[in-house]
């Protein structure tokens, strides 16, 4: 189907391969070379941006499994990130747990909290579930910012840099490698997860949960599993965020961020592996653009209101979400596959 002319599959292994042709492997190799040598020639600022993008991709991939594949809308994703961030930060800083273990614990903790709030998904769906995850966000943030003994309250808490086997990830470039490796693992896991029985069960639940149940998909189990996996990735992303910035407070994960995550996977394309990647890059680059351009605009046009710098980013994000939903609900991923198809078939478009 997606193969260039003249290439056929002769075995199941070939049929299942993610990277099927030599060209695929070539592009993958090129991408990996570019990514792994990036710290050599990218400025520190852009490395920081890339780090944030990759952390966000990890989180958005989790949300995509939950919302895009399993159809359970969550507008509390940043709330689950904060759970992971605090869990791993407290474990590694106060109890001296090794970083990788703390990272996993952060993910598992976020997953468990997500499951707790996801229990209601068995009885309700759509808007009800959205509101209950919204409530989760508020309750989690309130607990974090008031449980002063453990979390440091509204003052936030400093987080020491990650350490693995004597290596300390202090500079932007070091952290880049750490986050890149985790991001690659997460994307690989997500891509393969949706091709298993579990992934197909998620899609069945999304498309018609009654029919899925009749076909033998245990709704309770798979919905909770989707919540666990989605929030697990959120927790991992939260932990990485904590060690990346070196400081966390409940204000780093406001409700607007949760909403933005939903926006990102919508813009990227729900229920595709590349969707979250495109969506995150689109929104984060838009953010970078706005932070650079709006002060310049402000000084060029003194007539602009003083709230212009603060207000223009949400307006653009909101407009992007609305316009994508109206004009391209399948997101950038759909455009990308159209582009790939036309590239493959060129110059004969049939």
């Amino acid at each position, binding site marked *: 189907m997606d193969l260039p002319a003249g290439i056929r599959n002769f075995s199941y292994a070939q049929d299942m391969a993610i990277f099927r042709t030599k060209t695929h492997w070539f592009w993958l190799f090129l991408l990996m070379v570019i990514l792994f040598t990036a710290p050599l020639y990218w400025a520190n600022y852009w490395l920081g941006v890339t780090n944030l993008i990759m952390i966000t991709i990890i989180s958005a991939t989790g949300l995509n499994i939950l919302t895009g594949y399993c159809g359970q809308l969550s507008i509390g994703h940043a709330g689950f990130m904060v759970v992971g961030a605090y869990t791993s930060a407290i474990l590694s800083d106060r109890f001296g747990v090794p970083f990788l273990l703390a990272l996993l614990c952060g993910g598992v903790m976020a997953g468990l909290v997500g499951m707790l709030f996801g229990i*209601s998904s068995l009885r309700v769906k759509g808007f009800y579930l959205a*509101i209950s995850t919204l409530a*989760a966000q508020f309750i989690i943030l309130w607990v974090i910012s008031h*449980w002063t003994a453990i979390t440091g309250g509204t003052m936030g808490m400093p987080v020491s840099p990650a350490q693995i086997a004597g290596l300390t990830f202090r500079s932007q470039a070091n952290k880049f490698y750490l986050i890149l490796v985790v991001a690659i693992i997460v994307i690989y896991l997500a891509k393969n997860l949706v091709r298993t029985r579990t992934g197909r069960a998620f899609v069945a639940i999304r498309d018609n949960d009654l029919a899925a149940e009749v076909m033998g998909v245990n709704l309770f189990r798979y919905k909770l599993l989707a919540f666990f996996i989605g929030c697990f990735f959120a927790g991992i992303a939260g932990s990485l965020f904590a060690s990346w910035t070196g400081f966390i407070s409940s204000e780093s994960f406001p409700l607007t961020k949760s909403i933005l995550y939903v*926006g990102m996977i919508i813009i990227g394309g729900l229920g595709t592996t590349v969707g979250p990647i495109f969506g995150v890059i689109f929104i984060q680059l838009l953010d970078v653009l706005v932070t650079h351009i709006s002060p310049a605009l402000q000084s060029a046009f003194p007539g602009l209101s003083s*709230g212009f710098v603060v*207000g*223009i980013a949400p307006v653009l994000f*909101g*407009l992007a979400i609305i316009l994508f939903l109206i004009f391209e609900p399948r997101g950038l991923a759909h455009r990308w596959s159209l582009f790939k198809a036309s590239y493959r078939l060129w110059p004969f478009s049939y």
Partner: protein
Amino acid sequence: MAELLQFVITGIAVGLVYSLIALGFVMVWKSSGVANLAQGQLLLLFAWFAYSMLTLNGIPMWLGLVLVLIFSLVVGWLMEKVILRPLIAQPILSLITVTLGVAFVIQGLTSIIWPQGLAALPRIFPQEAIHIGTAVVSPEYLWAAAISLALFAFLSFYFKYNRTGIVMRATADDQKAVQACGIPVTRIFSRSWMLACALAATGGVLMASIGGVTFGLVDTGLRSFSVVILGGLDSFLGAMVAGPVIGLAQTVGGGYLTPLTWPGVNEVIPFIIIIIVMFIKPYGLFGEERIERI
């Protein structure tokens, strides 16, 4: 006892304003099946607009409030026409997310147009504090309660006797049948959006006259979702009953629980109630239970 009475009165009054905001939500949900998560941002927008009209431009009170009402109707009409009309018959996920996008846009616009972030409306109601028993209540609360009740009574009659109101109920019941009767359903959608925005404007101005025009209005809008959930998504009566319940839980519970737990507990009580309702009675007190069978 004095403080309990105080909590009860302010709780019921604030709760009735929540009900008003929730009514706007229920109206849109029933007629068009759209969950409007931009409710809080709409409150903020209308409160700021009222501030511009009344304080910045010095327009007389009655004219300013009429202008706010007209503005809210225009906003409602525009939202339906420009944003939600193209999305008719899309999955609920898109309908929820698009209102989140709208929320972002409105939030950004308000901080561009009104960068000060904090303002007080001029006094709309008389000033003297009112003594009820041992409690001292500022009159804004009582006015807010009275206006909410009056609007609820008006809406009840409107839905019962007015032609458009009846058609709105019919649309909520069966869109195809209404269409078959020769009534343009899209016009009903836009009417219900306009009415919902007018309710949001009333709620926004009332809340702003109590607590000033602040970003907290967005949270007020979010808290009113707990009213919707507790009362049942598709029930006007539910919204009207659940509002005071939430308001009471917030003031009374907040008042007595704060020493036991952490400060700010009154702000999460509505959200805790949401979670509890989801577990016990997900379709709310008066909501229609959807039982799906094959």
